[in-house]
């Protein structure tokens, strides 16, 4: 089956793609923000609320509770794998106890930031294009005097600068390297394996923000030897509000009561119901991971649907997904460069080679009144892309200069837009996007 026919077939799984507005279908190119949800995932959520809307964990032992537990923790007798094991196998973690459900990637990173036992003088090393999710948790600690934050600058061609990393690791007391595996700004994926080897050689641990990676890249955490991995299920055709923190068992705790005993074990940032083995009026003991990190009533339908989402992606095939994204991005990149060039008012951010940008194509428009193009694309032909600063204020303020968002004269206006594709995107959709963009540029006298 050719790629377009294949895409048409998988699109049938997504109810949102069957909607129409003004007689036209949606063209959803905002997948780096959040992905669409297939019917199987929606069904998993519905099943919970309509069939067994109870608590899970050790709280209750009744019928509904068992049904929920089965779908999250698995039940071999019933042949149910359970979401935690599905995710464990998906990233090849050593144990299900290494899979902590969180609200999202930001939450997962904050668990590490707030629980890591830093020593005076410790440095946390970031890339220069971190999403605020992987910047603010560290800046807060720096502000409190707990750590120092440093970053590695990107090469001019948008690639990762391994030499700069070597220098930073050699000359600083780096305790943790925390970086976006794939940047949400340009779609570039860093050479994680080499970075982890270098960091470990210098005694630093590594946290990867894989929010933009998991959707299209097979990750084997044991092969990578990464210490912590954070990601969001909603960027993988899953429910909103569910994320995952993977951590090596040695850093999450191997037994109950261990959190205060080992310098390497991170402390749970939030404590309460569901995290404790026992309490007295004066003391408490914690459960093993992952429970000690999953405080309070959880998003059970979301966690169940997370397993359904991962299974859905596995059935589609990660290679097939990345192949489709690369094919479409290559087409879009070549067409845009052919039409508008890449040296003047129109510029693609990141590596020129679409193969290095996954499904992300971010472009700058430096023309009068450059804002509002995303709205016009949506109004004219239901083409949905993103505009703004993509939560990467720090990098954009650095390269564009402070105040770039408030230019004094219209001729100094510039705006950044991001189209992000997924496996259900099609060439036909890309053509509508290109033609609509062309119309808008012509109306605005940009071309």
């Amino acid at each position, binding site marked *: 089956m050719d790629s377009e026919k294949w895409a048409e077939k998988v699109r049938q799984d997504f109810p949102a793609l069957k909607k129409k507005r003004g007689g036209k279908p949606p063209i959803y190119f905002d997948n780096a923000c959040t992905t669409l949800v297939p019917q199987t995932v929606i069904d998993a959520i519905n099943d919970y609320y309509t069939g067994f809307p109870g608590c899970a964990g050790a709280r209750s032992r009744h019928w509904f509770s068992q049904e929920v537990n089965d779908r999250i923790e698995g039940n071999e007798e019933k042949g149910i794998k359970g979401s935690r094991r599905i995710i464990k196998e998906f990233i090849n973690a050593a144990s299900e106890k290494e899979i902590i459900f969180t609200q999202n990637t930001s939450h997962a990173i904050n668990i590490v930031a707030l629980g890591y036992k830093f020593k005076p003088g410790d440095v946390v090393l970031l890339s220069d294009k971190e999403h605020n999710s992987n910047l603010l948790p560290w800046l807060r600690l720096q502000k409190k005097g707990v750590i120092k934050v440093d970053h590695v600058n990107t090469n001019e061609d948008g690639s990762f600068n391994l030499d700069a990393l070597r220098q930073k690791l050699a000359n600083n007391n780096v305790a943790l390297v925390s970086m976006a595996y794939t940047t949400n700004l340009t779609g570039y994926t860093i050479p994680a394996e080499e970075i982890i080897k270098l960091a470990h050689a210098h005694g630093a641990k590594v946290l990867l923000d894989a929010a933009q990676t998991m959707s299209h890249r097979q990750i084997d955490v044991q092969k990578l030897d990464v210490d912590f991995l954070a990601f969001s299920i909603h960027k993988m055709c899953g429910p909103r509000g569910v994320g995952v923190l993977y951590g090596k068992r040695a850093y999450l705790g191997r037994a109950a009561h261990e959190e205060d005993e080992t310098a390497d074990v991170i402390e749970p940032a939030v404590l309460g119901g569901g995290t404790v083995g026992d309490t007295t009026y004066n003391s408490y003991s914690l459960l093993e991971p992952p429970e000690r990190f999953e405080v309070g009533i959880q998003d059970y339908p979301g966690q169940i649907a997370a397993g359904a989402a991962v299974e859905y992606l596995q059935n589609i095939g990660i290679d097939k997904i990345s192949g489709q994204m690369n094919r479409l991005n290559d087409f879009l990149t070549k067409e845009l460069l052919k039409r508008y060039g890449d040296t003047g008012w129109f510029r693609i951010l990141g590596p020129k080679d679409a193969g290095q940008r996954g499904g992300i194509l971010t472009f700058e428009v430096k023309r009068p009144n450059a*804002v*509002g193009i995303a*709205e016009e694309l949506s109004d004219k032909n239901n083409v949905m892309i993103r505009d703004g600063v993509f939560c990467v204020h720090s990098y954009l303020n650095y390269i564009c200069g402070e105040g770039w968002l*408030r*230019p004094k004269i219209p001729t100094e206006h510039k*705006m950044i837009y991001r189209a992000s594709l997924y496996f259900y995107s099609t060439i036909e959709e890309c053509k509508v996007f290109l033609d609509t963009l062309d119309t808008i540029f012509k109306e*605005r*006298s940009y071309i």
Partner: protein
Amino acid sequence: MDELVVKYYRRLCREGFEHNGEIKSPDIFLDTVGEKIRICSHVSHAYLHIYIRISEGKIEDIKYLCTCDPTANVVVEILCSILKGKTIIEAEALTENDFTNALGSTDDEFLKKVRGIIELLHRGLDRYKAGIR
């Protein structure tokens, strides 16, 4: 975008944005963000600042700074061209018709922004009359 808005906007691009600029210590300062009147765009950093100098009851000068879409830019340019030299009473009497007459269009998107800018202007004039800077 409406054809007549496009035509007007192209002229601005060609001949320059006549009223773009800032007035130091204006008698009336209007800010779409502070007033929560959405004229520019849904982008979070989009904004429109209008500066008005009043002398002897007349609008002596009016300028603006903005990060906004072309339609909003056309609306504010028309506002400036209409208001300059008008009395405060005449400015208060400004209606949608003045804009549609200036552009020759009754485009929905254009008129939505016109209504927003008239509301913004009235708030500024009311504050000025009440002696609030």
